[in-house]
């Protein structure tokens, strides 16, 4: 892996995982709040 690629993965892995989990959680929250 080149240095540039390493840096790209290093800085984007956190935001990408956070975004994926946020979508999962947000969909669930919307369903739960609709049921109130």
């Amino acid at each position, binding site marked *: 892996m080149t240095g540039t690629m390493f840096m790209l993965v290093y*800085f984007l892995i*956190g935001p990408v995982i*956070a*975004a994926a*989990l946020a979508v999962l*959680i*947000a*969909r669930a*929250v919307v369903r*739960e709040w609709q049921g109130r």
Partner: protein
Amino acid sequence: MPVEFSTPQILLVLGVYFVVMLALSAWARDRTDAESFIVSDRDVAFGQATASMGATWIWAASMYAAATAAFTYGVSGAFHYAFWGGLALLFVWKYGQRVRQLVPYGHTLPEFIRVRHGRLSQSVIGLENYVNSQYSLILNFTAGATLVALFSPLSYEWALVILAVTVVSYSALSGIQASIATDVVQVGAMVIVAVVAVPAIVFSAGGPTALAEGLSALGGEEASLFSLQAFLGQGAPMMALILAYAFANPTVWQRIWTVRERQLGKIYITSGVLYMALVFSVGSLGLVALLTGVQPVDGDLNTIVPAVAATYLPTGVALAFLVLVIAAITSTSDSDLAALSSIAMTDIWKGYISRDASDRGLKLAGRLTMVVVAGIAVFVATFRIDILTLILIYGMIRAASVFPIAASIVWDRVSNAGFAAGIIAGIVAGLATRAWSTPVAEGALAGTSTLSRTLVLGAVFIVVSSIGAGTMAGCLAYPFLRIRMALGIGIAVSVAVFAVQVAALPGLLTYNSILSTLTALGVGMLVSTGVSLAGGARFDWNELERRVRPVGAGGVA
């Protein structure tokens, strides 16, 4: 000073934040009894529960310390902080699940310990939980007020009061229900900033190519993902305390009884991974600072994240970063207030003062507790009282109680005397190690210590701390494996850590905090097991469910 927001700007942000949180709390308040103030309806589902646990677990120190670790140790620094911190949630839920099955109507860990062991043991764990959350409140208030004062003309004291009043106001409205509803929005704010602002900063700072050039110029341990220096300085002390972080934290336990039981594992695992992703994202900005030469404001390492944000982002987005930190701070503080009020209502008010307490009386006790503990936090933060000694003792309680708590949940042989003796002996041993291990190592190095003293004390520290490392490994493994395998892992880790310590003599003896933590863990396990087995008692698990009922008008403890 890279940027300073004006007083109207900062007051507008804090004011809007206050109103939104208060409105959310009022909206979330769909039940008004004392039981709901503590555990909502005991059926909070995946989305809200995960957002709440994630937001609560991320406190001011997570952001600051991860960035500081990256600034200090390079690429592996933020990883160590985020990974081990998040792992605590991934390991604690099995113990939580077992406790929830044993006492379905429980509220707090001290309450469980009271019915499992008795009042002495309950007091020890109650004290541990209290110190944990009181310290967290002090640290979060201090961090928030320092930041606001640093980046605006508002004074530190005023910022402190505004933060405290904001958190107490909405938390007192509906307890855990307020905490959960506000956590959802707060974690949303954190995600937006991490997902949008962190990549924006990286590209504004020159992008991956420029940062890669900076990294190759840096070289050495700072450029390595496997830096030994970072592991010993940052990773190992956190590894040694993985379970202790979660066991000592009343906000984790309150949610064990608050969330939907069958989703418990999914909730804790997802929130642990969310913690890792968010904290790593923000922490990685410490590396940006290191690679691009951004310096912390006034040399204070806690300002790295906002300093990087203010350097590479326009003022409006930098202001959003401030909201991120405030969201992280208040989401943890409201959970600490809710958790401490639940202990006050369940363990103190109902347990000692009024066994037939009404809903109204219980909720009043809970709200007064919030005001008092927030007041103490502001007082200590204002006068910057040195609480180091308190924290030192607390750290030892936390380590010493890992095995007694874990064993009390799964092993019927642990007795009240074994529980209390294990924790007390562990604390004493940990403090003694802290006081003596460095002089012993230095004496051996300088040749001023007698050989027998060095050998005896050094051997005791090394053997017991190695057993402590094995104890933690065994406690982590047990809920997921058979007892024999967990024991095998514990013994293997003890032997491996012993071998490493002997090979590296006397070097590791000077790593005072890891050594004393592990010693407290090891002694806690040895004494707790010894005293319990000598007593010969066996606990009847069926006793538990009958002895814990809902609080308030409907429940009789």
